[in-house]
């Protein structure tokens, strides 16, 4: 008893514990320090500033980070070549760049700097494209819509309309590519399995071109894919290097693949015409929302919600970068107490796993993830390899598919092989999804609410008010 009393007395005389530092101040300090992770710390700071309601400070942080992320010069490259990859200066994977550029562009648009908002929309799309030389278009609809909104704010209606149509194309493109890819893989046709596999690989290699030329018409996209596949086959049979996406397909199999392409093409066209309406419904809803946003509405709200993609190391030496998609979430938003309709414009998990030069995630899943750039090196090979390997395995011979997969994998992880461990430093503030809400409230002050938080917005007499609602990944269950 006496001992307890003494301890209690001693406790009472103890020092008052120091006040824990303000996390925002700590992050501001970290982001101010030069170093190979300064861009990452600035992006993290932007996330925290937005969460604290400091849009101006978030914009300032991103204004510092973005030029570094765009720069082609970097510190620490030699050290990273010799050691762990994370010793290089952090610039972000393509999906992180897209998120940073889009976020900054949205903030700039809301603050009236439409010139630079437009610039960020263009950069976001370019970061996604990657293979523009080959003529493949970006499917980052959020970046294209940002361009359209900036053009509209500048009074350039024709440019705004053109950007909007590209955004709509992007939505349909990324909807159709996986649907048609799955459709082609779902049925069997009569004929030699090896030749059919080669035919299927050629058709898949042509899919991106077909969808790019007719992104809103599944059957026409398949016909375009067939046409492109025919061209690819002819190019493959010509002397010289094989066209991108067809490396590893044996010339003999390609020569005999024409009949198989015809049979597959017919079934594929039928399947495209019979795509279930519910599979196309999300794209239709997104298209309506995009057109609504450009239709002279008074309020356009970007909502960044959901859990963003995550990076992980994989492989014997942790040499492979694996990007694990997050979840776009579904935000519930109210404008002055009335629920708003929100539509998903972009799933950043999709963007993260299908873009950039290291699409190791698709490889590791062992299943074709196929989209617009699929005929470019790497992914096209692995997709084709999957098809051949799956077919050949049933015959007890997986050599052809194995070679294709191996070549594709080598291309994919060429950078990672030189470095013992893949760089998994990540900006955790990338949202899982970019959502859009539009409304026509009367001019004056209004309040947007979500998850117990509020954002005030002033709707002008003329023109459109833009708002950004950052719900943050940490708030997703």
């Amino acid at each position, binding site marked *: 008893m006496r001992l307890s009393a003494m301890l209690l007395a001693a406790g009472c005389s103890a020092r008052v514990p120091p006040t824990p530092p303000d996390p925002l101040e700590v992050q501001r300090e970290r982001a101010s*320090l*030069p170093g190979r992770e300064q861009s990452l710390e600035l992006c993290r700071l932007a996330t925290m500033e937005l969460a604290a309601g400091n849009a101006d400070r978030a914009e300032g942080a991103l*204004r510092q980070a*973005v*030029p*570094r992320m*765009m*720069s*082609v*010069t*970097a*510190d620490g*490259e030699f050290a*990273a*070549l010799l050691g762990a*990859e994370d010793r*290089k200066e952090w*610039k972000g994977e393509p999906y992180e760049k897209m998120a940073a550029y889009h976020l*900054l562009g949205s903030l700039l648009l809301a603050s009236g700097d439409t*010139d*630079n908002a*437009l*610039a*960020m929309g*263009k*950069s976001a799309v*370019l970061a996604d*494209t*990657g*293979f*523009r*030389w*080959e003529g493949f278009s970006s499917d980052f609809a959020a970046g294209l819509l940002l361009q359209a909104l900036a053009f509209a704010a500048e009074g350039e209606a024709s440019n705004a309309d053109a950007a909007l149509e590209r955004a709509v194309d992007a939505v349909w493109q990324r909807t159709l590519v996986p649907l048609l890819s799955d459709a082609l893989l779902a049925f069997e046709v009569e004929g030699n399995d090896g030749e059919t596999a080669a035919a299927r690989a050629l058709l898949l290699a042509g899919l991106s071109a077909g969808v790019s030329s007719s992104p809103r018409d599944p059957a026409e996209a398949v016909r375009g894919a067939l046409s492109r596949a025919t061209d690819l086959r002819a190019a493959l049979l010509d002397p010289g290097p094989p066209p991108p996406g067809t490396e590893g397909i044996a010339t003999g199999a390609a020569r005999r693949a024409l009949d198989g392409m015809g049979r597959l093409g017919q079934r594929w066209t039928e399947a495209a015409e019979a795509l279930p309406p519910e599979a196309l419904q999300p794209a239709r809803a997104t298209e309506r929302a995009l057109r609504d946003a450009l239709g002279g509405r008074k309020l356009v709200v970007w909502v960044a919600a959901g859990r963003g993609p995550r990076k992980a190391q994989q492989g014997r030496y942790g040499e492979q970068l694996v990007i694990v998609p997050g979840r776009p979430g579904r935000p519930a938003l109210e404008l002055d107490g009335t629920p708003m309709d929100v539509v998903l414009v972009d799933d950043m998990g999709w963007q993260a796993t299908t873009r*950039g*030069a*290291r699409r190791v995630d698709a490889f590791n899943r062992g299943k074709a993830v196929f989209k617009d750039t699929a005929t470019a090196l790497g992914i096209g090979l692995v997709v084709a390899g999957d098809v051949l390997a799956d077919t050949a395995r049933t015959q007890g011979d997986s050599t052809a598919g194995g070679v294709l997969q191996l070549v594709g994998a080598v291309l994919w992880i*060429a*950078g990672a092989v*030189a*470095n013992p461990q893949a760089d998994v430093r990540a900006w955790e503030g990338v949202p899982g999804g970019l959502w859009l809400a539009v409304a026509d409230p009367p001019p004056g002050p209004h309040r947007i609410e979500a998850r117990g938080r509020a954002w005030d917005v002033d709707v002008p007499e003329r023109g459109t008010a833009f708002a950004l609602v950052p719900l943050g990944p940490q708030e997703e269950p």
Partner: protein
Amino acid sequence: MRIALGLLIGMTGCAHRAKYVDPDAVSKVEGTGLEARDLRAVAGEMTVQLLGSPAVAAHEGPARVAILPIENRTRFLIDPEIVGTLVSDQVINGGGGRIAVVNRDLLDEILAERERLRTGAVEGGPVGALAGVDIFLEGEMRGLAASDARNQSDYLVVRFQLTDVRSGIVSWSNSWEVKKEGGWSVLYQ
């Protein structure tokens, strides 16, 4: 030991100190967009061309020029006002009086002060008409970008033009262009 430790701390401390560099020097953070030296080169060349243009040379007395906001249509974050400011400085200070820059940014303040002068609220005497504008100077930056996983290329054009306010005719125009290519190292591909 203490001296060595002190030296080490001192060296570490020095590493993060900011330093002055030549605005035309190659920066540690460079992309394929417009850098400081590009903007300075644009402003310098455009000023020389502008001062030597027939539209300005043929003008009786100083040509009264209003510099309009310069548009950025590139994919890069740029403060376009930098170029406008540099051009304005150079034509005022190095133009030998051939160009008079009309300031419309302060129009509200100027009108308010003129009203105070007119009513005698402040001393300064009678006021005449404000200077009109003979020529509008417009500028825009445009770009064409292409990239793949390894390379980045940007073609950038900065264009200026003079429009005569009386005729509406573009009396002079000139472009400054540059193409830059950069490669991502294997670590960033």
